[in-house]
């Protein structure tokens, strides 16, 4: 199966600023891929590179099997794109906007359009410039979902929306998931955790990891080791142990390469006096916080990014 999105060493520089650095990314068909990372990590730049809004400075990307630099015109009949800062036809009513976009897409599904309008409770006769931010996003969703695109790209789609609107949009999105591939960026982990199948973590333009959500959840564990007596942390702990800390007889850390028995043996080997060891599953938010804090705690150096990747991959 060909990946829907595939990038190789993709890079983008604005002057001397490196926005995206050597991005290797694969989004399989049918995935709901969430690209997460802090503000300024380069998520929007990556999406604009994929959409041929920006030209890459290095490497290349393929979207639906097409070189992103050649993506144009009819190719966008198969792509739905919604961005938090996308300009819209503000002077038009919602109905006029949908009327305008409809002829561009041979596969436009009028029934689906009407269903989405009802689902989102969109006021067709109101001008877009008079709509709230949430309503505008709903209108953008309808105009990007009604033609059943093969790929839906969403750039921070839920930022600044109230929980009700966000849930409505996610619900509309999930309904489309079986027939499409969804690639979305977000800095809010909670909003994507519930429905993403894949996740990638971006920091300072580099992808620290990219994998299936289930694999990620399986891989990370919050480890609590109870020792028989207080003792300092050993030096040279494995790189995959993030944020190790000790309080009296208890040592806590996040294990980024958890493998059931093997990890238990590894912990016991380092803490022979352990009275009890527990491995607790983590939420996505906890995982990313651990990664982020771990990276911030690392000494800045030229090999910083490599070190970060080694720790979490």
């Amino acid at each position, binding site marked *: 199966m060909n990946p829907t999105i595939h990038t190789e060493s993709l890079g983008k520089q604005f002057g001397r600023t490196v926005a995206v650095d050597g991005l290797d990314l694969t989004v399989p068909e049918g995935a709901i891929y969430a690209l997460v990372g802090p503000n300024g990590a380069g998520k929007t730049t990556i999406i604009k590179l994929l959409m041929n809004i920006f030209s890459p400075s290095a490497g290349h990307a393929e979207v639906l099997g097409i070189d992103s630099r050649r993506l144009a015109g009819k190719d966008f009949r198969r792509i739905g794109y919604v961005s938090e800062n996308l300009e819209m*036809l503000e002077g038009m009513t919602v109905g006029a906007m949908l009327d305008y976009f409809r002829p561009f897409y041979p596969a436009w599904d009028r029934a689906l359009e009407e269903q989405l309008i009802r689902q989102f409770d969109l006021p067709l006769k109101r001008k877009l410039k008079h709509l709230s931010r949430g309503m505008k996003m709903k209108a953008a969703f309808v105009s990007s979902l009604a033609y059943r695109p093969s790929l839906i790209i969403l750039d921070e789609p839920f930022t600044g929306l109230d929980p009700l609107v966000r849930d409505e949009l996610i619900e509309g999105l999930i309904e489309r998931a079986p027939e499409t591939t969804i690639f979305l960026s977000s800095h809010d982990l909670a909003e994507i955790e519930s429905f993403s199948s894949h996740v990638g973590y971006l920091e300072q333009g580099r992808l620290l990891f990219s994998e299936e959500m289930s694999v990620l959840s399986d891989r990370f564990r919050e480890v609590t080791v109870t020792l028989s007596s207080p003792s300092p942390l050993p030096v040279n702990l494995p790189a995959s142990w993030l944020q190790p800390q000790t309080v009296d007889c208890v040592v806590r850390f996040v294990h980024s390469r958890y493998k059931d028995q093997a990890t238990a043996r590894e912990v016991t080997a380092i803490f022979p006096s352990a009275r009890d060891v527990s491995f607790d599953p983590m939420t996505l938010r906890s995982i990313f916080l651990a990664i982020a804090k771990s990276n911030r705690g690392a000494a800045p150096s030229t090999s910083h990014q490599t070190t970060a990747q080694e720790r979490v991959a």
Partner: protein
Amino acid sequence: MKQTLHIFAKDVRRFWPEILISLTITAAFAWLYPNQWLPMRLSASPPRMTNQLISLLPLLVPVSWWLLISRLIHAERLVGNTQFWLTRPYEWKKLLAAKLLFLVLFLYLPIFIAQCLLLVAAGFHPLSYLPGLLYNLLIITGIIVLPLVALATVTSSFARMTLTVLGILCGIAGILILSSYVNMEPFTVPYEPSYSLALVLSLCGAAVLVQYAFRKVWLARLLLIAPPVLFICISEFIPGSSLSLIDRTYPCPASTAGAPIQLSYGPDALHQPKAYQARRANEVGIDIPLKLSGMGEGFAVVPDGVQISIESPSGPRWISPWEPVYMTDYLPEDKDSNVNFTMPRAIYDELKSTPFSVRLTIALTQVQAVNSTRISFPAHEFSVPDFGICAPLQWMPPLAGIICHSPVRQPPLASVSVLWSNTPCSASQTEPGTVVQGVGWIGKLDPDAVPFGIVPVWEFGFILTNEFQDEHREHPRYLCPGSPVIFTRYKLVRRAQTSLAIQDFHLPALQ
């Protein structure tokens, strides 16, 4: 095509107010502008304020286009990365075609119709001047429409475009001021508008295509900025860059005998060199009398520019820049004329007590009479072949004149000669007692190139009554009904340089 029409329809629905404004101004222009033409202005005498507003209409038409073009292009703007259309199935060729279709229907068609109506109002049949009208639209494209479209494609909003246009206008004004500081009245050779037009069309067209096809904003901006800046820098600020152009346009004949006219230094009792204060305080104007000879019958010579070279055994050697010559022509019957130039006061002060050699180099255009049309000064409108429709003007007798309307282009260069009477016209007067011949030049030497004009009718008039003054009073001369008026059309023969050396020239005292 379907997508083109779809985008076009969207733009029409969205920009109907801008369309309405532009159409209203164009319609007002077509309807009201003929009131500006002199005979009508005199007969109808609309209020002065109305006249001023009407005279603004040819300026308001392009201003309305400015708004229209900005709104149209910025609807799918090409600068930025957040536009909705970038990720929709827009095809750039169809988008561009939609914009062009809009301009054809709401800019070109209205102005074309307006120009046809103005021709009709002036008494011309538009179909007879169709090629000229279409070529005029091409010039309007090169001078107004395409530059505005190109600017709109490299800016993100009407405000930014306006600032850019104002910046460009300030830049041009600055260059002109700087240029005039370097050279007060630069002499420019007659240029080929078609070359400039082709250059503007190519550069602006390339910028527009680059933007629509690739959205390479900086490349498009470079295309728009670099060539004109380079051209201005070379032509204005690199000394001598225009000299080769002058030499090419006005080649030196192999011998003085081959010159279109023989010039010699000719002071006599009536014609003496003069020195006077020039417009600038640190410059002195010098007037040198010349004797003319060697002009063939039916020819005329128009001096376009003059350059002075001064050599003194004891003092500095000074070469003036080329200066334009205004309001002078040499006809076969002219035996005396003069040439004037300005020189720095410091040089004048240094040389005024010493004789020196001066060499005058004059750039000349030789023209030849092609045909003449003789009419009697009429009472009503009359047609002059290859020229236009003219009418007599006598609104403040004895001041008399002729006002002519020429279709689409300026008329070919022509001399208009009349016989003035020194005595008032009277019913009994059939032959003027004392008559004086008066000659005026009108029209352009290169009439093939249609000059730029929102107004397709060229209006030009000339007063035919010669008032001259003596020490005591003004003496009017009269142009009487029935007096002969002769339009003589001229064609270009050649352009050439001729020079004249004057030995032991003494600068006259400052008057």
